[in-house]
Each structure stands twice: as structure tokens, then as C-alpha cells.
């Protein structure tokens, strides 16, 4: 009986350790389909508020050209940073100086259909000098 209890305890500890590793590593999706398939936005990470930053995405010419908007998504709200066209492949935006927090994500959304085209998560540094210059 003692041996069984020991094995049960060891098993629970191993599983908890696995869970901890999963939460630290991330990206351990159980399903074949994961939101990472659309994680194609490229941006210099971490981003600096107040500084013009170019965000790029792969252009798929087979898709019809349409207006897209780049939105900053945080736990609190969504902020539209800028707009562009899908076939342009890039947009230059300035991250708001008033942003609170260090994490978020940027999403590229088709303004006509509201379809999510692409996204990526970002880290945001504290506001730089550009936020305080007159």
C-alpha cells in the first residue's frame, strides 16, 4: 500500500511539473489547428511607444485586395493604430504613449468583413524619450 501511495505521489508531482513546463514554454497546442497558423505579423519586438514602427505581413496575391486595420489588443481595450491595404504588406504605426502594461497583441483585420487576417503577440517597453518631447 505504501508503495502504491508513493507511485501516486510521484505521478502527481510529474504531472504538475509537466503543467508548469507547459505554462512556461507555451505553444503546446493539443490540436492540429492552432491560432499560430495566422501568427504571421512581423514587428520588431519589444516595441517602444512613441516611436514609428513598421509592421509587416506576408502578401497573398490570390486574396482580393482590401483595406485592413492594425489594432493593438490588450487586456483592457483595443486601439486602432493605423490602416493600410492587404496587398501593401506593411504599415508604419506609432504605439500609444499612454499604454499601460507590458504585454498585448496586434491584430490585422479586414475592415470590410472584420475577418482576422494575421496577428502576433508583443511586449511593450516603457514610453521612450519620444513620448516626452514637445
Amino acid at each position, binding site marked *: 500500500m505504501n508503495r502504491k501511495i508513493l507511485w501516486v505521489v510521484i505521478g502527481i508531482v510529474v504531472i504538475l511539473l509537466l503543467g508548469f513546463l507547459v*505554462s512556461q*514554454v507555451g*505553444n503546446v497546442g493539443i490540436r492540429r489547428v*492552432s*491560432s499560430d497558423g495566422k501568427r504571421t505579423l512581423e514587428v520588431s519586438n519589444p516595441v517602444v511607444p512613441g516611436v514609428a514602427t513598421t509592421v509587416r505581413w506576408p502578401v497573398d496575391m490570390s486574396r482580393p485586395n482590401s483595406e485592413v486595420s492594425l489594432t493593438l*489588443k*490588450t487586456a483592457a481595450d483595443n486601439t486602432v493604430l493605423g490602416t493600410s491595404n492587404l496587398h501593401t504588406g506593411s504599415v508604419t504605426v506609432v504605439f500609444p504613449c499612454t499604454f499601460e502594461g507590458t504585454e498585448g497583441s496586434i491584430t490585422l483585420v479586414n475592415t470590410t468583413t472584420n475577418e482576422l487576417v494575421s496577428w502576433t503577440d508583443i511586449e511593450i517597453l516603457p514610453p521612450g524619450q519620444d513620448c516626452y518631447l514637445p
Partner: protein
Amino acid sequence: MTGEVLLPNGLALGIIAFLLSLLPAGFFIYLWYLRNRDRTIPAWSIALAFVTGMFLVIPAFQIEDIAERLWQIISPSTAHFFAGPVLPLQGWVDVLLPAIGTFVVVATVEEGLRYIVMRVWLKYSALVDQVFDGLLLGLAVGLGFATLENTLYFLGLFREGSYDTLVFVFFLRFLISTLAHVSFAGLMGTLVTQGYFDFFRSRQYYVLAFFIPWFLHGLYDLLLGINFGLYAVILLIAPLAVFIYWTQRRDFSIIHRKDGKMLAVAEVPQTKEARAIEKVLKTFESPWNKQAPWLKQSRAYRKILEGITRDES
């Protein structure tokens, strides 16, 4: 023959991924089946269940693809929730919509296909005569499913070029995905078999056999999708503990069926040693056994009696 034999890149990687995926499957099959001396079900049946589990991945993924395309047509603005929310979570919508994806589509499709296969198999297979057999078959089906799913996941990661965390994620996913499918499918196999052998509560068992794995699978996928990986793995502890406890239950070894026919009175299984002893005793106690000691005893007893009666007379 000159020149090297070269495989296409994709095929070579696929073979490597498949062979690596077999490692956890082989380990669990050894743990719960191969190392037992008394195997209640033949190895070819377990192998067939494993292959069936692998082949279930194909229709499962096709149905999920169709569901995703349908969602895209119906609501393009929310279609991305099928694959999971865009983090960070903002409100209940970021949890509810992915939950629709995991519960209504993924869990229903995957557990539903396994349920149909197991219901048909466990009902018509003459080899399944104990609840423990259903547990083993469920385990094999779950392992087969997890093996091919892991292989496809590895290939997908490699194609995307995610090399930095490839090894770590790969091995983590091996263990977690395999444990998840083992516990869900094992519970399902056990409950379906119990439902088949219990005449009075069969419907209750059949309902539980679908809904418990369905709920656990949906919740587990959802927790992983919303980046609550630790809670998802903690959730696994309960079904895994129940599954391991059920592998030790002696009443699951009771024989309910013989030669494909249900027994009016369930039998206790015999060990190999008991069966061997029974075989020997059958020969020993046969009326044709001229060497039987009781024949000699009877002869000796008769001679002694004759001697006594002769002396008396």
C-alpha cells in the same frame, strides 16, 4: 547498384516523426498490457485497435476542416476563434467562442468517432468478455489516435520553421497529448463495455461513456487554447487517476461472455496455472486412467478386506 537512396525531405521527416511518436505509445502499451503474464485479449486485437485509432485521425481532421470552413462562411469575423482566441483575453467572448470550437466541433467529432467505433467493436467482438478488455481496447484506440496526431503536429511545426522550441514542445506534447487521449479513450472503453454487460443500467453507462470524455476533452482543449496550460494538465490528473484505479479493479476481470454468448451467471477468471492444473486433473480423473492411484487403492482395500474375512472365517 550505384548511387545513394534518397528519400524526399517530407517523407524522411514523416518517418522520423512517426517512429518518435511510437515511443510513448509503446511505453504505455508495455505498462498496461505487454508486461502482464495473463493477457485477457490477444495482441493482434490490441494492434488492430491501435491501427483503427490511427485511421480515425483522417476523418476527424477532415470533418474539423469542413467545420472550420463552414464557420468561416457563416461568420468570417469570428472564424479565427475556432483555432483559439487571440491573447490576451478581454472578456467572456474570448472564452465562449473558442469553447464552441472545442466542445461543439473538436470534442464532438473526435470523441464521437471513437464512441461509434468502440460501441460497434465491443458489441460484436467475441474476444471481449471482460470489462478490462474494453479498457485495454479503449487505451489502444486512444494511443493510436495520439500517435498519428503527434506525427502530424511535429510535421506542421517543422514546416512552419519553429525550430527554436521544436524539441521541447515536441516532447512535452508527446507526453501530455498521449496521456490525455489515453485517459479519455480508456474511460470511454471501460464505460461502453460496462454498459454492454450491465443489462439494467446500460443506457446510463452509454450516456456517461460519451459525455464524460467529451466534456473533459472540450475543457482540456479550451484551457490549452486560452493559454491556461497548467490548469489543463491539472485537469488530466482526475481522469488519469480514475483510469489507473480501474486497471486495478478485480471486478473488471469477471467474465460475462463465453464464445460470443452472454453468460447467465458471470464467472471468475482462471489464472494460467489454474487452467493448467485443471487440464492435468481432467486427464488424472478420467475413467480411462488405468494408472489412477485410487484403482490400486481399491484393489489393495479389496485384498485387505478379503484377507480379514478369510481370517475370520
